[in-house]
């Protein structure tokens, strides 16, 4: 690549990024959590039969999966990965890690395009490469991370179309379209970004190309739009939306009645006012110090809890970055502000915030601003004496290296142990054990309470997916989620030990909190922190009832 040739430093950054994302990808995080397994097995099913878990042929709008209707693109990315690496933890996570690495390159390209400064672009690429937030999401099969790649790619193509190749706008739109087929949040982010980019670069856009791109995008988004209009498509949105909080409506009605339902009461106590404030609160929660610098997302799958979404040392540079962005008034900064302002919108309308996945796009503008801060501070410092410069570089380097070591040490040595249950650790061991003894039993019952066991049994037994379609017994609950009650020898649910089926040899796998204290398990599966996860009982050992 012509662009990369004189840029040894960037190559090094890419290698670093790839190493941090790909090294022992299958081993840490310590296991696949349920969504990852679902993505993986659906890809496997597509690869083997061309059908998803429900026997649907090559879905393009959504995969039903658990009833959460997963966007399709990540699964299709896993298909070749499974074809090459086999059905394994690594294969499921590989697309995320790969595109995560590519995002680092895009960060470089986009900053270079905006500011035409190589060292600034390198600084931002390096910051993204070592970002705890971005590494965390790149090391698990998170659709959001692939969505992030497509979003940034879309922005880059857009900028490309503005100053070089007009037709790139078609590629830009297609990238945004791909992002919408990858992750729910992008369905909100993509159109907003396009609209604002259109406004910012209005004068430079060739309308002909723009309309062509728009037409193509609209056509290809039809299957998605059709799906989103169905009740199933809206289910997920309803489930997480802040706008169906009945308390808010009740409160607004009480306040109106206190004000005798006058005309002004109907304006100021309109529930939309409360909902707007609610939205702002969720939106701005992504700029809280705790989320950004102390411990990140509260979900241990999205942050190791010992480090924030950004490193603590980035705090002064983020602040100075803001200062310089406003002060220098460079044209490219509009795009940074745009990304910053738009990123938290989809997370803002959802209940749990701050959310490291729904607001993932935020990592890019934040690191851009940190980089901008460092770069501009350096502009001032580079004019000072040599000794001063050296002290500055040394201090900065030492702080960042210390931060990365602290983060990585925790990530590799302590994180898997402390949080293995968050990753539903233990199913691989369980399925391995069950497979080794299952010939001796007629029925294998697995108690629920720890993720969704059925998908792990599919994943780790690697049975023929076609066999699963024909045997599966499942139902849909009133929330719209599907539950598998059983297939083949396996049964999933809550079971009563006192009355095992007559004349059958039964293997019972019990989630530890529901253990039968009076019985002795024939095998126990442990979490990485040493806690008991599953107790396995055999019906041979049950004392006969009198």
């Amino acid at each position, binding site marked *: 690549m012509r662009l990369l040739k004189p840029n040894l430093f960037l190559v090094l950054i890419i290698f670093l990024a790839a190493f941090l994302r790909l090294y022992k990808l299958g081993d840490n995080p310590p296991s696949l959590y349920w969504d990852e397994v679902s993505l993986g097995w659906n890809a496997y099913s597509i690869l083997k039969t061309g059908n998803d878990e429900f026997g649907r042929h090559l879905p393009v709008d959504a995969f039903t999966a658990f009833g959460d209707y997963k966007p399709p693109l990540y699964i299709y990315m896993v298909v070749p990965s499974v074809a090459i690496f086999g059905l394994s933890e690594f294969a499921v996570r590989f697309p995320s890690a790969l595109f995560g690495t590519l995002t680092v390159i895009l960060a470089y390209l986009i900053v270079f395009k905006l500011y035409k400064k190589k060292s600034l672009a390198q600084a931002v690429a390096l910051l993204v490469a070592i970002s705890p937030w971005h590494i965390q999401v790149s090391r698990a099969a998170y659709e959001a991370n692939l969505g992030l790649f497509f979003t940034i790619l879309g922005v880059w193509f857009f900028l490309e179309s503005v100053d070089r190749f007009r037709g790139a706008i078609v590629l830009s739109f297609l990238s945004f379209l791909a992002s919408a087929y990858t992750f729910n949040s992008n369905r909100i982010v993509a159109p907003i970004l396009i609209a604002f980019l259109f406004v910012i670069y209005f004068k430079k856009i060739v309308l002909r190309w723009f309309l062509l791109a728009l037409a193509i995008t609209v056509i290809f988004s039809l299957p998605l739009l059709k799906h989103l209009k169905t009740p199933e498509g809206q289910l997920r949105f309803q489930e997480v939306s802040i706008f169906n909080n009945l308390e808010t409506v009740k409160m607004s009605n009480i*306040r109106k009645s*206190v*004000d005798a339902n006058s005309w002004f009461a109907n304006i*100021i106590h309109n529930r939309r*006012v*409360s909902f707007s*404030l609610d939205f*702002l*609160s969720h939106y*701005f*929660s992504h*700029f*809280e*110090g*705790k989320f950004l*610098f*102390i*411990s990140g997302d509260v979900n241990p799958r999205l942050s190791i*809890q010992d480090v924030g979404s950004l490193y*603590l040392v980035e705090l002064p540079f983020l602040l100075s970055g803001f*200062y310089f962005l*406003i*002060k220098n008034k460079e044209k490219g900064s509009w795009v940074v502000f745009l990304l910053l302002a738009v990123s938290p919108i989809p997370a803002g309308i959802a209940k749990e915030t701050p959310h490291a996945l729904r607001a993932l796009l935020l990592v890019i503008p934040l690191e851009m601003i940190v980089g901008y801060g460092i770069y501009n501070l350096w502009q001032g410092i580079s004019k000072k004496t040599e000794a001063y410069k050296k002290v500055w570089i040394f201090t900065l380097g030492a702080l960042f290296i210390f931060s990365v*070591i*602290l983060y990585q*040490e*925790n990530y590799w*040595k*302590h994180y898997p*142990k402390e949080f293995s249950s968050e990753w539903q650790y233990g199913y691989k061991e369980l399925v391995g054990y069950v497979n080794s003894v299952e010939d001796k039993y007629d029925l294998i019952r697995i108690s629920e309470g720890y993720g969704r066991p059925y998908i792990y049994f599919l994943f780790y037994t690697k049975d023929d997916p076609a066999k699963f379609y024909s045997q599966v017994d499942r139902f849909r609950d009133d929330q719209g989620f599907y539950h598998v009650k059983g297939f083949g020898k396996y049964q999933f649910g809550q079971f009563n030990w006192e009355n095992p089926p007559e004349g059958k040899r039964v293997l019972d796998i019990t989630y530890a909190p529901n253990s039968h204290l009076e019985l002795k398990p024939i095998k126990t599966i442990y979490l990485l922190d040493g806690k008991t996860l599953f107790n396995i009982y055999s019906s041979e050992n049950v004392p006969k009832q009198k």
Partner: protein
Amino acid sequence: MKIFKKHTFWLVLIIALASFLRLWRLDKNPPSANWDESSIGWNAYSILKTGRDDFGQFLPLSFRSNDDYKTPLYFYLDVPFVKVLGLNLWSVRLPSALSGIASVYLTFVLVNLLFAKQKIALLSALFLAISPWSIHFSRGALEANLTIFFNLVATIFFIKGLKNPRYFVLSAVVFGLSLFNYLIPRYFLPFYIGGLFILYRKELVNKKVAISIFVVIFLIFAIPIVKNLLTPSGQIRSLGVSIFNNPSKGDRLSFYRDISAQKIQEDLSSPHPPKLPEIIHNRRYYALLLVLRGYLSHFDFNYLFLPGGILVYQTPEFGLMYLSEFPLIVAGLYFLIKKKEAGWKLVLLWLLIAPLVAAPTTSTPHASRSILMLPMLQVVTAYGASHLYTVLRKQKLGIVLVGTFILVFALNFSFYVHQYFVHYPREFSFYWQYGYEDLTKYLNENRKGYRKFIFLPKITRLTDHAHIFLLFYNKYDPATYLASGGTKLCDFGLTGRFSFDKYEFKTEVCDFKKNDKLDIFRGFEPDSLVIANPDDYGGGLLGFPAPVKTFYLYDSSTPVFKVYRSDDIMEYVQTHPEFVPKPV
């Protein structure tokens, strides 16, 4: 009209607005005296009459009050108000309200002193006058509000002292006095005064004598405080709110000592570079994170601009600042750093140190413990507003934009006033422990018919300090009260049942025997009234005797107290052997 050009005209207008917002219906909203206000009021009354507090201490330097060992200044300041106005909500709240009004004026003075720009000084005063945070704290007898006043006065004297060193004496005295009002200055002032010395080191170089006098005077005030802080009762309050001593379930970081030890142990059990585990898992690093988390939380958008956080301190739909102030304060920070006008450092010093005191405490962000962010938040806002205006004035349509913004701000402000005066008392009367005034009146009307009024534990829902409300609303004679023994609290191992007049107070510690849950109901005197929380002690049970009277919150729909006849309860207990009275 020449008069409108004069800043005094505007200043008078702003102070009038501030006074209206702080004095109008001061005794009606907040809707009732909370336990702190009752305690301050009655104790001031008692000091006036007997020189003693409700525990019988003579002129204490630390009021035990509701077992929170309050700082003394507010009590003593309140004495003349009680003397003149009598014991009521006006006399209790006026010191705070007046200090809030004075702070508006003092903010003008300080900003004018710092920036020599009357426009910015006026705007700062205006933003403080209408600040929801300031209004809220000025309208309750909250000692926190006085810290703003003292700090403004002392700082103004300090800056004047740079020119005329005699002012240093006054500055030191006021700083010193403020150590006796609220706990915050004790931790804030060392940082702040140290910061002032560093900031003005050039001006102070040749004022060694003045500085020495300043330090000596301040230390004279500080010594009793330091001595008090070395005793257990002096520490109880600070330790009780320290995050280091109160890890909370579900907050992983607050168990940092365990995490650190666990990780070091894990590392030591496998090959590791020398010293590395101890360095990167050092508990001090986690402690730093914990403090920093608390500190940064005071700058969260949600905390400053939106409802949420600690309920006691909020108005429905409002945060501590107006949403409309957000763009102004952002601009203010930017221009403050960019322009570097004289005084900018003091503003930031004050503003950045203020939350430091609240940082290592539980339940951060905390509006009361970080109260000293006022009035500097408003100063930065004013600075931003003024400079934004200068920039926009020259733009095409700039004036239209400014006009629209002022309109939006005015609506925002009107909405606040409506919310505070109409909806606040209705929705938040619970946090002002509403209900005791009605209850006291009712009991007085029924004095003749009953022998005792028995209060069951947790009657205020927060804790068992019902007596202080009865003292306050009855204007109970201090001499009589102290003669009957004064306050006797059971919580800290003191024994002996607590009663005065016809009132008798049951507490969980003293009146629940381990093996005899029914003990609390035995020995109820016949022909008495029993006052309990609505759902406590069988109050929610089917078939439990009906209360003779129920009291409600200000919204007239949420019950706060139920009053039973003791004979009804005794009969129920005897006919229902399976009944176990438990507080909910």
